[in-house]
């Protein structure tokens, strides 16, 4: 299965944080040969053949013993190419979730389901609601349109951000977390895994909700970038930006590095950045503020899911109800998330009612997926700070 992040305009490679840094090619053994793809360089192949002909000799009578390979063992993941690993991670994560499209109060309501095995038996699945989303009415979106028009006035100020975030907001996060292909290749791989996992879910929800874009409401919006063909709510950029913000903050928190420890300003800053990325999409004229709110709820919820799939522990479900989001309200992420507690708030409400609810759930039975745990641990190692006491002492 090829997983294509939803907001990619051009190509997977242009979008993915991982490949945005050319990490893939840096890894690939084949690229050392200058091969364009999987080693299909005809001249090289010809040379390999003539070389073999020249040196192969007569067949050996006997070859030594070969040990049976270890089966299904995460230790072997490091020997796989990143692309192969990515497929394996997706196979694990994709199996952890399901989607259904239901009806709620007469309107469509996509639901994500948290899949887990009953008593460790993978053939007996149980489902818990992970996320449910309801769209706002067209009348409410029409009122949101005034905000989109108002935001248009700061387009000249935000143009550079908006244009560079069309395909890859990920590099912006490396201005806060020290993320670099040379230093944190597995962190990039982990974030890419989470993004690739989220992309089809975002698209499926968008498709189900089919919320019109601002451009369809008024000829005066005139977005400064092309409007993507998929639905408006939830904002994919908001989903992905909040997903990244949450996972990077988790890595920081678990690193035990004193600078990250209990310093909530790191988490706060990551969320500020995510909110800025989301707001820029409103400024550009391709989203409503309510799309950002829905995207943030989705992104934060999926971040918890990815984290729990890697580490076990509790997981979170949430509901977003666009019919209760203040139609004249802007999105403020503080309404849905508490950085100091490092968790979603229980609910967010407007004068029209509760538009977001979130709930923590007891850990699922069974171990977290070993391959995902391997990825998490590899990424986490990259965040650990080395102090003098961490160095091996001679004689010990």
């Amino acid at each position: 299965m090829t997983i294509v992040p939803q907001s990619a305009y051009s190509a997977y490679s242009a979008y993915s944080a991982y490949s945005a840094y050319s990490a893939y090619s840096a890894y690939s053994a084949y690229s050392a040969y200058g091969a364009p793809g999987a080693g299909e360089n005809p001249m090289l192949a010809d040379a390999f053949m003539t070389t073999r002909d020249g040196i192969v000799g007569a067949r050996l009578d006997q070859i030594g013993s070969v040990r049976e390979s270890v089966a299904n063992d995460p230790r072997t993941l490091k020997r796989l190419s990143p692309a192969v690993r990515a497929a394996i991670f997706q196979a694990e994560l994709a199996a952890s979730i399901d989607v259904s499209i239901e009806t709620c109060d007469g309107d469509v309501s996509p639901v994500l389901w948290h899949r887990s095995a009953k008593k460790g038996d993978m053939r007996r699945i149980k489902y818990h609601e992970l996320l449910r989303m309801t769209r706002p009415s067209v009348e409410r979106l029409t009122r949101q349109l005034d905000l989109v028009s108002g935001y248009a006035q700061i387009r000249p100020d935000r143009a550079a951000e908006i244009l560079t975030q069309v395909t890859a907001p990920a590099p912006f996060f490396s201005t806060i977390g020290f993320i670099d292909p040379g230093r944190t290749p597995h962190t990039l791989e982990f974030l890419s895994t989470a993004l690739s996992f989220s992309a089809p879910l975002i698209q499926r929800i968008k498709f189900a909700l089919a919320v019109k874009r601002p451009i369809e409401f008024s000829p005066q919006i005139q977005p400064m970038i092309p409007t993507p063909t998929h639905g408006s709510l939830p904002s994919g950029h908001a989903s992905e930006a909040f997903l990244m913000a949450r996972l990077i903050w988790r890595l920081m928190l678990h690193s035990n590095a004193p600078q990250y420890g209990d310093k909530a300003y790191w988490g706060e800053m990551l969320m500020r950045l995510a909110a800025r990325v989301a707001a820029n999409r409103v400024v550009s004229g391709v989203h409503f503020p309510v799309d950002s709110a829905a995207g943030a709820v989705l992104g934060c919820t999926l971040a918890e899911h990815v984290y729990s799939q890697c580490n076990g522990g509790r997981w979170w479900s949430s509901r977003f109800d666009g019919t209760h989001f203040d139609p004249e309200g802007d999105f403020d992420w503080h309404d849905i998330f508490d950085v100091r507690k490092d968790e979603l708030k229980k609910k967010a409400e407007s004068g029209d009612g509760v538009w977001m609810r979130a709930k923590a759930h007891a850990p699922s039975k069974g171990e977290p997926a070993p391959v995902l745990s391997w990825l998490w641990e590899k990424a986490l190692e990259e965040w650990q700070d080395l102090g003098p006491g961490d160095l091996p002492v001679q004689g010990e």
Partner: protein
Amino acid sequence: MFTWQHADDDTLLDHHTDFRLGLSESHFPDDPARIWWSVLIEIADVSIDQFEAALAEFADDLLIPVAYDPDDRREVKELQPVTIFARKPLIEVLNDGRNVFGVVSVHLGAVIPEALLDRFATPPALSPIRVDDNAVVMAVIDDGIAIGHDLFRDGPTESRIEHASIFEAAPHSGSSHASLGRSYSRHEIDALLRRCHHNGFLDEDRFYAETGQADFLAGTASPVSRRVSHGTHVMGLAAGRKAHHADAPRPIICAILPSRVVQDTTGVDLLPLLYLAFVILAKQAGRFRTRTKGPAPVVFNFSYGNTGGPHDGTGVFASLFRHVVGAGSEFAARGQKAWLTLPAGNSNLSQLHASGPGPGKQTNVDLIAQPDDRTPSHMQIWLPVSEEREQPDFARIGITAPGGERKTISTRPGQRASLFNSRGQEVARLAYQYVGGFVQRGRVGLTIGPTAGLDEKAVLAPAGAWQLEIERSAGAPAGDIDLWVRRDETLPGSLPGGRQAYFDAADYVRFDEFGVPLAVDPTGSDCPITRSGTLNGFACGADPVVVAGYSAREAGVAGYSGAGPTSDRGGSPGREGPDLAAKSDESYLMRGVISAGSRSGSWARLSGTSVAAPRVARAAAKGIQGKADTARDWSRMAVGESPFPLNADPRRAGAGGLRVEIRFDDAQK
């Protein structure tokens, strides 16, 4: 097809007001009679209370700001300017010279959304504020001031701003002490800072949404949502500093003008709210008492320019500060020292000034009205000083519209000609009127309607060269005749889409032989368009310190920096030019100076004399506690003590360059 028609009309107090009100019929989609305007009127020999009582039948069309307290409202003065909010039916009555309400002059300001007005506001309580003996109050009037910026705080949630009036914000629900917009005390700002503070950071998106300064829903401009905002930058230079600064206390009071007014830089539009801002801040300033030395001194900075007005120190703005601070003012009564710094203006190279003919001469100059100009253009011809009962016929003013339609009027009361389109709608007006009060001059105004409009009902004037021919009457008294075009340019993309009209003449030389813009008039030139006399029209009075801009690397006055001299008054010379110059550019290539960006921790670069003036205001805050009696005396001393070497004509740089080093971060030891 356009046609001039002559009309003898001596009843209007202000033709420009009348013309703009006429335009409102076709330029505003709503009922023009329902639109509120800010208006600056002058009333003579009546109190505000009497004025209001006499207008009982217009009660629904009149709102007198609560900034005027009961004492103000009771006071009868020979002449007093008052800012009011009014609707068209009332403004038309007041603009009639035969009115019986004591109104002797009318300046139409800006359209004010009704949602920003509060009829039920009550006057603010003006409780005293105790400050240290070495404290100086910094008073800033500007647009787009990010009041939550860390340079205006003493700690994460401790503001140094004791008062902020925000004119373009929906009034507070409940008890409000502002008739327009809203006001904040320091305690209220601190409470808001606390509410919007999370994990070490101020959520500035939320903070400015709460103050009403960023209101994307209302569709109003939100300058503090941009990376750079004029008022933040200016106030940063005047009074910005990090917490725990070593300098003496600098409490801040500020009034934040609506940016839509700023975008409509016709100058006239600005006056009523500017006046109101001064009234409000003058009262706030009175709250500051030092522990042992009486009222704390105040330094005002107002970094705005205007190219209109008589340029002789008698204009409404020039008299405004004198009215607020001078003899008989609240400041004088309190014994409180107040200085004002103003920019020299940026129109030196903008071709907005021309000199009229001397005795027996004639001047020909074109006024270029640009295409796609969505706001009216306004040009003024100021005649020599004369008494109202005399008003000699100084000149004949001929005008030829771009289509060749020609008309001439004389400079006598009642002279007026209007250009009508084929549907009988007025598209331009040339009219004489006498400006009394302190000014005592005749003025011919040419108002040209917009040359473009998106509304199909818009009444449009032709773009192109409007040829002016000014023929001095034989035997008319001596004295200068000067022409100025009002600024009405707006930045691309901003409302309301004004493009600047300018003078043109065949013999105007813009560049030297190397292609560099000429910053001074060529020697021996007879061209009527001059760089001299381009000093900011607000800055021609006797009291303020007027600041030119210099470029530090080249040690030269910035090309745009406005030049004197101001117009003479019947033989008594006015200002020679600015008082001094301060840095407005690092170099010709690296324009501007660094100060606060809109968001905490950010820095931005802005250029212009707007950023030179607050630099001097910052230095003046130290000077005001010294020996100098007046701001201008101090400015000369300051240049002597801390000079920046400039080789410049006094008409462009006054006493010379002043070096002001700004340390935003100078923690107390």
